[in-house]
């Protein structure tokens, strides 16, 4: 197989125009190499983009811009991410090991489109938008439209993911990512849940965003749950109703890690814990703590 390492984004796009789906884009390779070694993919060309440093930048304002080549390790350790998107920090910390976090990228995590992709729920609750570029063309798309199925995205074979933008948390907003696994290291999520809540000084929920992974063909935003929480004061019966709605929104499967039934049962408890953590953080943020 041919191996090409692009020196510029334009060069990478030109090769994608030439090769289309003959090319497999390679960033860190933690997923692509396994698929290659298992012969699940058989591209003619590995198109390495890991040297495109312009895709490895973070800009933190009210809106966050995260270069798709940012590694999980950087997501887990960069103070700008911790401040503006703490749920993303928490999610990145749980991905694989130090060795794979150094190499695996957030853009790779999105394009690989695993049902269990940990970085996706935090990006969904942050309203992430992806930028897709091809030669002479660029388009933006909400992340929840980008993910279309298990290991399937809306990226065309001539396109490269060149940007990720998202909303930073503001005072009065708290967010968290919680993950259920069998152990605390090297674990693929049984359920992963991100929640971002904005609350008034009297604890009325003015905005709720809830997203989950590992319980459907692709991670998704649970809008029915969001509508139940918005306008409420998070009374116990509201949280219980939201938990039932979350389980009802999912379509989990039995697999080696857990049963579908277990996944359904654990979700309401995870949601309740996440809401408590968000409320705590939202109050602390308002007091400037």
């Amino acid at each position, binding site marked *: *197989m*041919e*191996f090409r*390492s692009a020196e510029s984004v334009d060069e990478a796009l030109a090769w994608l125009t030439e090769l289309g789906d003959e090319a497999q884009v*390679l960033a860190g*390779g*933690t997923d692509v*190499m*396994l698929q*290659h*070694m298992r012969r699940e993919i058989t591209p003619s060309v*590995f198109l*390495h983009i*890991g040297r495109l440093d312009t895709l490895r930048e973070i800009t933190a304002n009210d809106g966050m811009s995260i270069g798709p080549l940012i590694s999980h*390790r950087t997501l887990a350790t960069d103070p700008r991410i911790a401040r503006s998107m703490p749920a993303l920090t928490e999610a990145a910390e749980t991905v*694989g*090991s*130090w*060795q*794979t976090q*150094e*190499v695996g990228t957030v853009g790779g995590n999105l394009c690989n489109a695993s049902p269990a992709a940990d970085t996706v729920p935090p990006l969904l609750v942050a309203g992430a938008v992806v930028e897709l570029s091809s030669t002479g063309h660029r388009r933006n798309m909400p992340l929840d439209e980008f993910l279309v199925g298990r290991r399937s995205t809306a990226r065309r074979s001539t396109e490269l993911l060149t940007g990720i933008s998202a909303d930073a948390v503001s005072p009065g907003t708290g967010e968290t990512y919680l993950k259920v696994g069998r152990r*605390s*290291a*090297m674990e693929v999520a049984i359920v992963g849940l991100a929640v971002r809540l904005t609350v008034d000084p009297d604890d009325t929920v003015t905005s709720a965003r809830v997203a989950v992974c590992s319980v459907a063909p692709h991670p998704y935003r649970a809008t029915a749950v969001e509508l139940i929480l918005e306008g409420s004061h998070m009374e116990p019966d509201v949280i219980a109703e939201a938990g039932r709605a979350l389980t009802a929104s999912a379509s989990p499967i039995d697999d080696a890690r857990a049963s579908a039934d277990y996944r359904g049962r654990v979700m309401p408890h995870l949601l309740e814990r996440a809401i408590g953590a968000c409320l705590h953080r939202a109050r602390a943020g308002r007091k400037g703590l």
Partner: protein
Amino acid sequence: MKLSFNVNQRDVTVDVDGAEPLLHVLRERLKLTGTKQGCDEGECGACTVLVDGRPVDSCILPAGVVAGRQIRTVESLAGPDGQLAAIQQSFVDRFAIQCGFCTPGFLMTLTALLEENPRPEETEIRGALSGNLCRCTGYSTIVDAALAATGDDQ
């Protein structure tokens, strides 16, 4: 493809398939067999080497990506006279080795950790080692050896 990089302070050029795992290039072409092939799928850490000082699983790293980079393997730790590095001597002194197959990977991850943070807490050591599996020791002696190498437990 012709691939040039630096391994253990030595510039090398090898003719490889860019998609070939770095581990194979190190073991089969450069005969640096200290780095071990364990799971071959990025789970166990036996193949850990440092790329520009950062630990990576060489079994799932395509060789083509290391062009121009600095690689360090377990062979680089001891001095030319055979004098063990502090972390290696600490493993010997604390009985942190049984079958030894995972040891090179642990040593490389800990080398990266101690260069980044010379005095890590036990929780930081355990966190850093979460991608290195050992089926013999139960990890306690390995963590003890790492703590001893920080100078806190001499």
